């Protein structure tokens, strides 16, 4: 298990808030910290990991935890 420094809950949020919020959150966090993002919107669950990767961060895991619910773990670069 990795230590999670912060959790961002984007469940119920509409397009594109999950994407924009995670991007802003990640920018604010320090290097080496781990963020857990909760998502219930399919498009964002696929796209957020891609966006965060292209920003240079390390996506540790994307896990489907329930009906249309995902958890993304990302380590800030």
């Amino acid at each position, binding site marked *: 298990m990795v230590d999670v420094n912060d959790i961002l809950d984007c*469940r119920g*949020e*509409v*397009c594109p808030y999950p994407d924009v919020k995670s991007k802003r959150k990640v920018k604010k966090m320090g290097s080496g910290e781990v963020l857990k993002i909760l998502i*219930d919107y399919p*498009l964002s669950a*696929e796209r957020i990991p891609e966006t965060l990767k292209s920003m240079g961060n390390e996506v540790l895991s994307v896990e489907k935890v329930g*009906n*249309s*619910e995902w958890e993304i773990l990302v380590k800030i670069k």
Partner: protein
Amino acid sequence: MVDILVVLLPGLILGIIFGIILQRGRFCMNSAFRDIIVLKEFTLIKSVILAILISMLGFAVMAFGNIITLNPKPFAPVANIVGGLIFGMGMTLAAGCASGTTYRVGEGMMGSLVALLGYSLGAYITKSGAWSEAKTILQTYKISEVGTGANLTVFGSELTPIFMLIIGIVGIVVVLYFWIWPMLKSRKTADNKMFDFSDIGKKIFKNGWSWAITGSAIGILALFAYVSSAATGRNYALGITSGWAGWLKYWITGLDSALSWEVFLVVGIVIGAFISSMIAGEFKLRSPKDGKRILIQFIGGLAMGFGAVVAMGCNIGNTLSGVPLLSVGSLVSTAFIILGAWFLAYLLFMRK
């Protein structure tokens, strides 16, 4: 009475297929346009471009084969500009374009359901209610082709079909060479297989689709839609706005005549997206936590309905179906839908 074999079933079946494609491909033009500036992401816009190119080539071939007659939308500059801008800003507030909002209702997103109600209402009252006068005034100034009086297309009514053929072929080759080939190549180096057909059921119904599959599927579906819709007397490819306006009109007036091919198409989209999201485990009734957001989505929907009727088409009627016909009106509307979306996306998501 509604003709079941010509209107109801074909509209509904094509709608269901469209809904499945939209849901699997997460095909939303609002996201496609916005991602370009907000996330610098080009995946969805590639889908849109590929779908347009395939439709363009297909429509041209079918027109030369006398299977369909091309029917580009008119050019009414003021209406296209004002309607496009308002539609573009509306879809940013509603969190989805016409097709995106429709398929998300099938996924169980209650915010989109509210947006859709606003959209149907806005479209209906602009078509034939309290806002129809504004529409008439904005659409008064029209520019038609000199000589023939035909609706204005980029290369004129005589040459446009030939250019559709050329642009379609060249465009598809360019997309294949610059976007699809590199994608397949990188896949090959990754796991030594360019096409992997194992677990095909899982790939179709559980995973999201790649942009190339989604774009091709929509482009091809549009060809069938054109033929099927023309058989009902509506000589055009896919569209959403009149479908929802007609749907609302039916409930209010009780007139069977309101139940057009397009009404069954949009209802089919919701059903298709529901089926597809259920299979994928992506269906969930959910709503934004913030009540304000739901109100904003409703207002966005109203604006979309107004804008789409004024501009004579939403992102499907104008962008997906009208741009392939090289209609000047559709191209101008599309440009201003994008500008409207970018303007609000900039204000809401990019400042600070």
